[in-house]
C-alpha cells in the first residue's frame, strides 16, 4: 500500500470481479442489520474472534458432556501425583480404588465374599481382617493385581480387570496442586471466566451507553448528576468497599434472602460488584464523544426535521460513538477475568473447589519455577479470549460505523 492511498477498511485483497459483484449487491436496498452482517462476515479476523467465542461458550455449556466423553472429572484428587507435567499417565489414589471395591461389594456381596476367601486361600494377600482382602488386592500394582485376579474363579473377572485398567488415567495438560486434571478444570473454568467476560462486556456497554449518552446529550443538571456519580464511583476506594460487601450476610436481608436460596451467595455478590464497577470508563468515553457530536450539522439537521431525542441518540449518535465504546468494552473483558480471580482473594469470587482461569493462574504463580505450565496454559486461554473479543469488536466497529460502509 503506498503512502498516499486513502485508507479504507478491508482494502487488502478484493479482486475486480468480486468487487463488481459486491457493488451490485450493495446497490440493492438493504436493512441496517443486513448491511452490518454482510460487512461483518467479510472480516476474517472478526469471524475468527466470533467463532472462538462461540467455541468457548459451547465448551462452557457442554462441560459435563466433555467430562463424560473424556472419562476424567475435574474434582478427583490424587495428592501423591501433584504437579505432573502435560502428557502424564498417573495411577488413581487409594480412596478412589477403595470406593470402587466398596461399590462392588455392595452390589455383589456373595461374589465378593467368594473372591475374598479365594484370595486368602491362595495366599495372594495377607489382610488383618478377612473382609479387607479385596481392599488389599485393589491397592496392589496394576499388573500384579490383574495377574492375581486371572487365577481367581469368578463371573466378575472381566469387570474387575477393567476396573484395574481404568485406574490408569491420562492427563493431556498434566495435574495441578491436588493432582486434579488440568484440562477438565480449564473446561469447567470456562463457565466462570466466559460468564464473567460476557456479562461485563454487556453490562458495561449497556450502562455506559445509557449514562454517557444521557449526560452528554442533555447536559446541564442531568450531566452534573450523572457524571458526578460516575466520578464518585471511580474514586471510591475499592478495597474497603469489597471487604464491607464480603462481610454482608445476604441471608439477613429480607428481600435478597429469597434469591440466595437458589443461587450461591458469593456468585450474587460477584455479579453485583462486576456490574457496579465496570461501566464508568465507558460512560466517560461515550459522553466525551457525544458532547462533540451534539454540535455537528447532521444532528442539527435531524433536530430540525423533528426527530425525537430517542431517535437522534440511538439512530444518529450511537453509530458514531461505537469506536471508543467497543475498545473499552472488549479490553474490559480480559481485565474482568483477572479481576474475578483477585476477588477470590477476598472470598468474593467463586469458592473452592470451583475453578476459573483466573484463579488457576493466580494459584500457579508462587510456584512458577516448579510448574510453569500451570500458569502458562490459563494465561494463554485468557490471551486468546481477549484477542477474540477485540477482533470481534474491531469487526463490529467496521460493520456498524456508517462512515466505513463501502457504497
Amino acid at each position, binding site marked *: 500500500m503506498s503512502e498516499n492511498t486513502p485508507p479504507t477498511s478491508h482494502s487488502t485483497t478484493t479482486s475486480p470481479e468480486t468487487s463488481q459483484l459486491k457493488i451490485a449487491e450493495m446497490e440493492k436496498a438493504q436493512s441496517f442489520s443486513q448491511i452490518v452482517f454482510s460487512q461483518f462476515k467479510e472480516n476474517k*479476523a472478526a*469471524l475468527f474472534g466470533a467463532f472462538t467465542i462461540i467455541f468457548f461458550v459451547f465448551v462452557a455449556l457442554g462441560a459435563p458432556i466433555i467430562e463424560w466423553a473424556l472419562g476424567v472429572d475435574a474434582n478427583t*484428587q490424587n495428592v501423591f501425583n501433584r504437579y505432573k507435567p502435560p502428557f502424564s499417565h498417573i495411577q488413581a489414589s487409594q480412596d478412589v480404588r477403595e470406593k470402587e471395591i466398596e461399590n462392588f461389594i455392595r452390589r455383589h456381596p456373595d461374589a465378593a465374599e467368594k473372591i475374598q476367601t479365594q484370595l486368602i486361600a491362595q495366599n495372594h494377600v495377607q489382610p488383618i481382617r478377612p473382609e479387607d482382602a479385596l481392599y488389599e488386592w485393589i491397592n496392589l500394582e496394576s499388573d500384579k493385581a490383574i495377574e492375581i485376579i486371572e487365577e481367581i474363579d469368578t463371573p466378575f473377572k472381566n469387570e474387575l480387570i477393567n476396573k484395574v485398567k481404568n485406574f490408569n488415567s491420562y492427563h493431556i495438560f498434566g495435574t495441578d496442586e491436588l493432582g486434579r486434571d488440568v484440562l477438565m478444570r480449564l473446561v469447567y473454568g470456562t463457565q466462570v471466566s466466559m460468564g464473567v467476560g460476557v456479562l461485563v462486556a454487556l453490562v458495561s456497554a449497556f450502562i455506559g451507553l445509557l449514562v454517557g449518552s444521557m449526560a452528554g446529550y442533555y447536559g446541564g443538571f442531568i450531566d452534573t448528576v450523572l457524571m458526578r456519580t460516575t466520578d464518585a464511583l471511580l474514586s471510591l476506594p475499592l478495597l474497603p468497599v469489597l471487604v464491607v460487601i464480603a462481610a454482608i450476610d445476604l441471608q439477613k436481608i429480607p428481600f435478597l434472602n429469597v434469591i440466595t436460596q437458589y443461587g450461591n451467595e458469593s456468585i450474587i455478590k460477584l455479579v453485583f460488584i462486576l456490574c457496579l464497577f465496570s461501566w464508568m470508563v465507558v460512560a466517560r468515553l461515550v459522553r466525551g464523544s457525544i458532547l462533540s457530536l451534539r454540535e455537528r450539522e447532521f444532528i442539527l439537521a435531524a433536530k430540525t426535521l423533528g426527530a425525537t431525542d430517542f431517535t437522534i441518540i440511538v439512530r444518529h449518535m450511537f453509530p458514531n460513538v461505537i469506536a471508543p465504546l467497543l475498545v473499552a468494552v472488549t479490553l474490559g473483558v480480559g481485565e474482568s477475568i483477572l479481576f474475578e480471580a483477585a476477588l477470590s482473594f477476598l*472470598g468474593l469470587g467463586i*469458592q473452592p473447589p470451583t475453578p476459573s482461569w483466573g484463579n488457576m493462574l493466580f494459584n500457579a504463580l508462587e510456584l512458577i*519455577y516448579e510448574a510453569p505450565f500451570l500458569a502458562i496454559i490459563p494465561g494463554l486461554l485468557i490471551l486468546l479470549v481477549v484477542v477474540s473479543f477485540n*477482533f470481534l469488536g474491531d469487526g463490529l466497529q467496521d460493520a456498524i460505523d456508517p462512515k466505513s460502509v463501502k457504497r
Partner: protein
Amino acid sequence: MKKISLTLLATIVSALLITTSCTKKDSAGSASTETNRYSNNELKIGISQEFETFNPLISNMMATTYMSRMVLRGLTTINADGKWIPQLVKEVPSFENKKASIKKVNGKDRVVAEWEILDNATWGDGTPVTCADFDFATKVAASNNVSIPDKETYSQVEKISWDEKNPKKCTFTYDKVRWDFYMLGTFFPVPKHLEEPVFKKYGSQKEGYEKNSLYTKDPTNVGLYNGPYVVSRIQLGDHVTFIPNSKFYGEAPKIKKIIVKLIPNTGTLEANLRSGTIDLISTMGFALDQALAFEKKVKEEKLGYQVLFQPSTVYEHIDLNLDNPFLKDIKVRKALLYSINKDDLVNALFEGKQQPAIHLITPKDPWYTDDPSKVTLYKYNKREADRLLDEAGWKMGEDGFRTKDGKKLSFTIMTTAGNKTRELVQVYLQNQWKQVGIDVTAKNEPARVFFGETTRKRKFDSMALFAWVSSPESSPKVTLHSSKIPSAKNGYSGQNQMGWVNKKVDDLTTQLEAELDHSKRVSMVHEILKYYTDEVPVIPLYYRSDVAVIPTQMKGYRLTGHQFPETNDIEKWSLE
C-alpha cells in the same frame, strides 16, 4: 486468517520459549560463580511483613518483634530448646533457687521474686541498666494515655523496689500467687534517662508519649538500645540497618552490618535471594510450599543455601460449632475425624515437613503427650467413620450423600480467603468427607472479616479452619473454659469459639493456674487433653513449621519455633 493464526502461533511459541528457557537457565545459576559472596562484613535479611518503630512498650507487629530482639534485651527469654534462660539478669528466679517466695503483702498472698541485673548491662550510651528502667517501664505502661496492647505483662508486677546502694538488684512484687511469674519474656526496660523527660512533658496528653518518644523522634540514638546491635538507619516500609553496639554486655557480635529489607511479595523472595538483594530469608518469608520447591532446587542445582524447617507452636485446626444440631452428636464429630487421612495430608501436601496434630498442645511443649493411655488417638479409618454415621442414623443415599429425616448431612467450612495452603487443605478435606457421604461446602472470607467478625462472634455455622499461636506452657483456659465462650456479655473476648462446655475441664483449667507443682500441672493438662480428644470439640489438623533459608556457610543460626525469635542469638551468627 492464515496470517493471524501464524502470528498467534508465533507468540504462543515464543511465550513458551521465554518461560521454559528461564526455568531451564536457572540451573546455570549464579550461586556457583560467587561462592565467596558472604563475609562477616554485611548480612542482608529479607522479611515479607511490615514493621513499625521500636518502642518496646507499644510495638506489636511480628516483624518488629523479630528486629527489636537484635537491639533490645529483656529479663528472660525461651531458647531454641524451649528452656527459660536469663538475658539481662544473672539468673531466672524460682522457688527452687530461693530467689522467689510467697509472702503476705497487704493482706494477700503474693509472689515476691528477685531479679538481679548483670553488672555490665548498659544502654548503648554507657548508662547502666538499672531497676529504675524497669520501674519506669511499668509506670508508662500503667498510664491511660498510652496505648499498650498487652498491659497485663506489666500490670502483673505491682511493685518494683531496690536498694539505692545496689540499683541492679530488683525485688518484684506480683499481684497474686502465680506459678508463671518468671515468664517475663516481653517485659522490657525503657531507658529512664532518655525517656523520662518525654513522658513528663507529654504523658498527660492522649497518645502524647508515643508520638514524642525518642524511639519515634530519634530512632538512631544509641542510648535507646541495650542489645548486641543498634539501629543506624530506619526507613519504615523499606529497610532497617543495624551496626554492632560497642557497649553490649554479652559476646561481641561478629557480623559488622545487618540490613533487614522488606520484600512484601513472597513470590519474589527467591529472585531477590538469587540476585543478591538479600542473603537470608527469615521465618517471615517463604510459605511452606515455596520452601519445599526451593529445597528441591537447592539439591538439584547445588545452590549454596540451606532450607531450615522447624516445627513451631502453631496449631492448625477446625473449630466445630457445637450449637449446630448435626454436630451436637458426638458420633458425627468422631466420624468427621476418622474420615480424614492426616498422614496422607501432611505427606502429600507438606512432604512430611509438618506434623499431623492430635490436640492443642504442640510437640515441643513440656506438656505434650501422645501416649495412647493418656489421650485418645484417631487413626484414619473410613469404615469406622461409615459405621459411626450409620449408627447415628445417617443413611447413605443414591447420590452418595447421607440423609436423616429428609435432611442432608451437610456443613459449611469457612477459612481465610487468599491463604493458599488453607484453601488447599480445605479442598482436600472436602473430598475426603465426600467419600463417607458428608457434603461440605466452602465459604471463605477476608482475614479481617473472618477473625474480626465470624470467629470472634461465633458466626460460623459449622466449621472454621484457622490456627492458634501459643507458646510453651500457656494456659488453655482462654480456649477451653466455658466462661470464655464469646458472647455479647463478655464483650466477645473469649476464644472458646466451639461453645464447648465441660464442667471438669472448667475446674481443671482454673486449678491449673494456681498449681505450683510442675508435675501436677502436667498431669492436669493430660486430663484436660483426655476430655478434649474424647469429646472432639475441635478437629486437629497439623502443627505448622517455621521455614527459613540461610547461606550454607552461616554458623550459629538456630530457629526456635516459638514467639521468641532466633534473633535473640544474633551475636552468635557468623558467615565465616
